[in-house]
C-alpha cells in the first residue's frame, strides 16, 4: 500500500512566482496513494529537509516526491535526506518544477496545471520504485601498466609508492622507451639518461613492482576492479635467473653488423645484445631473425662462452596470468616513416636523418659518442638544415594535426648542434613556432638570439645531393616567398609523431576507443582526460596524443592517482541503476529465450551467457545475464528485448509505463490541459 509524501518547493520566487504551489500541493494531495502533501519556501534548506525527514518518520512514508529544481541539481541532497530518515534513497524522486516549468512559462493556470502533471508523473513512478542497494564490486588491488616508457615508469612508481602492487609490461627488452634515446631534454638541456636511469633502477628494485620486459599483453577479460589478463613473455633464449649480465656473449657474437634499434639504425649491434648499457633489466636477448644459430642451425658461440651456461635456444614463450583491478595504458608513440616525402630523399641520402637519429648523434652514449659527425662519411657537418613539420599539419602528404613536440625539439637540436660545432651554421625551416609552455618560448628565443640559429619561415620543396653537398631548396615567406637554396652537409627532419604500431589491436583487446589516427581516446576531452570509456582503464603519455616529457609525466601521475583512488576501497560502489535479466519459477527459470540479439546492442559487452543447470549439472537452458560490473545502465537492451525479459532498475517497464499513463489517460480534458 503506497504511502507517498509530496513536497512542493517555492524556491523562493523562482517557482512560487509563476506556479501556484499551494494549489499544486492541494491537488496532488488528492492523488490516490498520496498521504502527505505540503509546500514550503525552500525545501533544500535545513528546515525544508527536516520537514521531509519528519514526515517520513511520522507518516511512515514509503515514497517521496520533491517537486523543486532539476534532479541534476538536488537529487543527491534529497535522497541523502530520505536516507537519513531511514527511507531507501531510491524511493525518493524529484519533479522538475523550476527548469522545466516555472522558469520557461508565464504565470498562470496552464503553468500550474503543468506543474501538477509533472508531480503526478513522478508520484506514479515512485509508487513503483523499489528499494535499491548500491552495487558493490570487489577490487583486486593490483595495477597493470602497459608500456615502460617515462609515462609507464612514472605511473608504476606512483601507484607502487601508494602501496599497491603493480605489473609493468614492456614490449622491448628494456624499459626506458623513447626518452632513453634522447640526448638532452628541453627546456633545461639536462641529460635525458641522467634523469631517467635512476627511475628505471627504482622500478627494477621496487618491492611492489613486477617487471615483465620483452613481453606483450595477450588477452584481457573482466571489468573494473576484476580484470583477468594473460601476458606473453617472449623467449629471450636465456635463463634470466642464471644470467649475470656480464655481456661476454655479446662481445663474442660473430654477427655484429645488425642496425641497432636503440641508435635508430645509426649504430650496429650483435645478434645477442643488450639494447643499451643502462638497460633494465641488464640481460641480453637473442634476435632470432639475425642469429646464425637460428637461421643456419650452427654457431652456438654464445652458449659456449657463457660462464653460467644461461643460454637456452629452445626456450619457449611463456604465458603469465594475473588478476588486476585497474589498467594504465602508456604504450607511447612513434615517428612517421619519412620515406613518403621522396623529395626530401630520406633513406636515399645518408645525411638526411630524422629526429631520433639526430638525438643519437648528439648523445654521449650514441654511435659517435656525442661528437657531431654525419652518417655518410663521419665528417663534421659545417651546415645543418632542420625541417620542422616534416609531415605534421600537412593533409596532402602527412597528417592534419600538429605533432606538438617538434618545434621544441627542433630548437633543441639546432642549439645542441651550435654548442658542439661553434663555427657551424644551423638553419630551421618552419611554418609557425609553437612554443606554448613554461620556459618554452624563452628557450626558442635563446636558440635564435644567443645561439644564432637561422629561422627561415617557409617550407622545403626538394633536397638533392650535388658533389657531396645536400642542396636544400625552399622559400622564405617572410621575404615574399623568395626562393632559398642552402648547401647543407646534413638535414634533420622533424618527422610527425604518430600512434605506435599495434595501437589498434591493443585498443580492440582492451575495448577502449581510438581516434582516426589510432590514438586512444579519453572519456572526455576536457574533464576526463586520463580515463577511457571503459571503467578501470586509464591513459598516460603519448599513446593518447603527441606529448612532451613533462606532460606525459603529469598525465601518468594523474592516471596513477585515479588507480590509487580506485584501490582506496575494498569494494567499489556503483549506482544500482542497471539492467537485469529476469528469473522466474521453474520450469521456465527465465522468460529469456537466449536469442542473444541483445548482446551486440550493449556498448559495454556486459551481456554474458549463463547456463541454467539441474542439481546434477544437466543443462536446462542458456539465458542472458547482465554483468553488474560492466553495465552502465543505458537500457538499450531493455527496449530491444522482445519478450521484455530484461528490465532496468530506476526506469523499469512498470515505472515508465505508469508515467505515460499518469500523464494522459484523462480523456475528460482533451481541451485546455
Amino acid at each position, binding site marked *: 500500500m503506497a504511502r507517498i509524501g509530496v513536497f512542493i518547493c517555492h524556491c523562493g520566487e523562482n517557482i512560487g512566482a509563476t506556479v501556484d504551489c499551494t494549489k499544486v500541493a492541494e491537488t496532488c494531495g488528492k492523488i490516490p496513494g498520496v498521504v502527505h502533501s505540503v509546500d514550503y519556501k525552500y525545501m533544500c534548506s535545513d528546515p525544508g529537509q527536516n520537514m521531509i525527514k519528519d514526515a517520513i518518520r511520522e507518516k511512515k512514508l514509503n515514497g517521496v516526491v520533491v517537486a523543486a529544481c532539476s534532479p541534476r541539481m538536488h537529487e543527491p541532497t534529497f535522497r541523502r535526506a530520505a536516507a537519513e530518515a531511514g527511507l531507501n534513497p531510491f524511493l525518493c524522486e524529484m519533479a522538475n518544477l523550476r527548469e522545466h516549468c516555472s522558469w520557461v512559462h508565464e504565470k498562470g493556470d496552464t503553468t500550474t496545471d503543468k506543474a501538477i502533471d509533472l508531480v503526478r508523473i513522478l508520484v506514479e513512478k515512485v509508487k513503483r520504485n523499489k528499494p535499491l542497494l548500491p552495487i558493490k564490486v570487489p577490487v583486486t588491488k593490483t595495477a597493470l601498466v602497459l608500456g615502460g616508457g617515462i609515462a609507464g615508469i612514472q605511473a608504476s612508481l606512483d601507484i607502487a609508492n601508494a602501496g599497491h602492487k603493480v605489473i609493468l609490461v614492456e614490449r622491448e627488452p628494456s624499459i626506458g622507451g623513447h626518452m632513453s634515446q634522447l640526448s638532452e631534454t628541453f627546456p633545461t638541456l639536462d641529460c635525458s639518461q641522467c634523469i631517467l636511469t635512476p627511475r628505471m633502477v627504482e622500478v627494477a628494485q621496487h618491492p611492489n613492482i613486477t617487471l615483465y620486459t620483452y613481453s606483450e599483453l595477450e588477452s584481457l577479460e573482466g571489468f573494473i576492479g576484476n580484470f583477468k589478463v594473460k601476458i606473453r613473455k617472449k623467449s629471450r633464449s636465456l635463463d634470466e635467473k642464471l644470467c649475470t649480465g656480464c655481456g661476454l656473449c655479446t662481445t663474442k657474437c660473430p654477427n655484429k653488423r645488425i642496425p641497432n634499434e636503440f641508435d635508430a639504425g645509426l649504430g650496429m649491434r650483435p645478434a645477442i645484445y643488450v639494447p643499451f648499457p643502462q638497460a633494465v633489466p641488464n640481460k641480453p636477448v637473442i634476435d632470432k631473425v639475425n642469429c646464425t644459430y637460428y637461421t643456419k642451425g650452427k654457431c652456438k658461440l654464445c652458449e659456449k662462452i657463457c660462464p653460467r651456461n644461461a643460454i637456452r635456444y629452445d626456450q619457449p614463450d611463456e604465458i603469465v596470468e594475473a588478476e588486476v583491478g585497474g589498467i594504465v595504458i602508456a604504450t607511447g608513440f612513434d615517428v612517421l616513416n619519412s620515406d613518403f616525402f621522396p623529395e626530401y630523399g630520406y633513406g636515399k641520402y645518408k645525411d638526411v636523418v630524422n629526429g631520433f637519429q639526430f638525438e643519437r648523434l648528439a648523445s654521449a652514449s650514441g654511435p659517435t659518442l656525442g661528437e657531431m659527425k654525419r652518417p655518410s662519411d663521419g665528417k663534421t657537418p659545417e651546415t645543418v638544415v632542420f625541417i620542422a613539420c616534416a609531415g605534421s599539419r600537412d593533409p596532402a602528404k602527412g597528417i592534419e594535426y600538429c605533432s606538438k613536440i617538434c618545434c621544441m625539439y627542433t630548437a633543441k637540436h639546432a642549439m645542441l648542434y651550435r654548442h658542439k660545432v661553434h663555427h657551424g651554421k644551423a638553419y630551421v625551416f618552419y611554418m609557425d613556432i609553437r612554443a606554448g609552455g613554461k620556459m618554452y618560448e624563452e628557450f626558442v628565443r635563446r636558440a635564435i638570439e644567443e645561439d644564432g640559429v637561422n629561422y627561415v619561415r617557409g617550407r622545403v620543396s626538394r633536397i638533392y645531393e650535388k658533389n657531396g653537398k645536400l642542396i636544400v631548396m625552399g622559400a622564405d615567406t617572410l621575404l615574399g616567398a623568395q626562393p632559398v637554396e642552402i648547401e647543407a652537409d646534413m638535414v634533420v627532419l622533424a618527422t610527425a609523431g604518430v600512434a605506435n604500431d599495434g595501437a589498434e589491436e591493443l585498443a580492440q583487446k582492451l575495448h577502449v576507443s581510438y581516434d582516426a589516427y589510432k590514438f586512444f581516446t579519453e572519456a572526455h576531452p576536457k574533464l576526463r582526460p586520463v580515463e577511457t570509456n571503459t571503467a578501470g582503464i586509464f591513459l598516460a603519455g603519448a599513446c593518447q596524443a603527441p606529448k612532451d616529457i613533462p606532460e606525459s609525466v603529469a598525465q601518468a601521475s594523474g592516471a596513477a592517482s585515479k588507480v590509487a583512488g580506485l584501490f582506496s576501497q575494498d569494494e567499489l560502489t556503483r549506482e544500482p541503476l542497471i539492467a537485469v535479466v529476469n528469473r522466474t519459477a521453474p520450469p*521456465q527459470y527465465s*522468460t529469456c*529465450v*537466449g*536469442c*542473444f*540479439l*541483445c*548482446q*551486440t*546492442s550493449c556498448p559495454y559487452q556486459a551481456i554474458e551467457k549463463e547456463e541454467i543447470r539441474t542439481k546434477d549439472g544437466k543443462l536446462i537452458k*542458456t539465458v542472458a545475464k547482465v554483468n553488474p560490473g560492466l553495465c552502465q545502465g543505458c537500457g538499450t537492451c531493455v527496449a*530491444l528485448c*522482445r*519478450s*521484455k*525479459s530484461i528490465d532496468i532498475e530506476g526506469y523499469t*517497464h*512498470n515505472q515508465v*509505463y*505508469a508515467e505515460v499513463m499518469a500523464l494522459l489517460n484523462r480523456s475528460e480534458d482533451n481541451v485546455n490541459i
Partner: protein
Amino acid sequence: MKELREKARDLLKNKDVQVVIGYGDGTGGKPRAIFIRDPKNADRLIFNVKCEQNLAVYLMKHEVKKLGRPAIIATIPVVRSIIQLAAENQIAEGGVVILAVTPDGKLSEIKTLKDAETFVASNPPYTRPEDIEKLEQIEKMTVEERWTYWLDELSRCFKCYACRSGCPMCYCERCTIECNQPQWVSPASHHLGNVEWHIIRAMHIAGRCVNCGECARACPLDIPINLLTLKVSEDIRKNFGLTAGMSATLEYALSTFKTDDKEEFIR
C-alpha cells in the same frame, strides 16, 4: 518424391534422425505437416507445389524437440528460417538434417550450417510478385487511404494469434502480448488492440523475417499481414543492406549500427 521418401527412410533406419518433419496428405487436397518416426511410414511423405507451409516452426515446439534429432523437408524460405534460428542460438550446428527442395524439385541433403548458407546463396531470396505489387500499391496511397485500408483489414482480426503460432521466429516463451505487468497490449480484439498487436509483431520480426508468408497463409481471415513484415524487411535491406536468414552469423539490424546510417527525419 520417391527419392525424398527413400532418403527419409534411410535417415530413420540408420538412426541418423529420430523424426522426419515433412508434408503429407491433408483434408481437401491440402497438404499438412506430418511427423514420420517409423521408416515404414516414409511413403506417407509427399511433396508438390501446394507444400508451402514453413515447417521450420515445428523445430521450435517442445513437443517436437522431445522426439529427438529431426530431419526436415525444407523449401528455400524454410532453410533461411533455420539459418536465422541458428543465428539466434536456437538451433545448434548439426541439430537438424535439412532435406532442401528447390522449386525445380531438386533434393539435396544439408548437414552443416555452412552448406545451408551456400544453398541459400545459390538460391537467392524470393518474394512473390503479387506481394511486391500490393506493397507498392499501398505505398502509392495517401496516408488517409492507408489508414482506412489497414483499419478495414485489421478490423477482421480477432486475435487468434495463428500468425504467431505459424511463424518460426515467434518462439518466445512469453510473448509481449502475455505481459500484463504492465499490460502493453490490451487483450481485447478491438481496433486499438489489433493495430498495436500487428505493429508489435512487425517490429519484433523486423530484421529476422524471411518473408515466407506463413503469417498471411495462417490467418483464417486472409488479412495480408505479411505485407507489414515485408515492408519492414525491405526497409532494412534498403537502409542497412541486411537480409535475414542468409548467414548463421548475421548481424541483427536493430542491435547493430553504422555511425553514418542515413535518415532524413531527425531534426
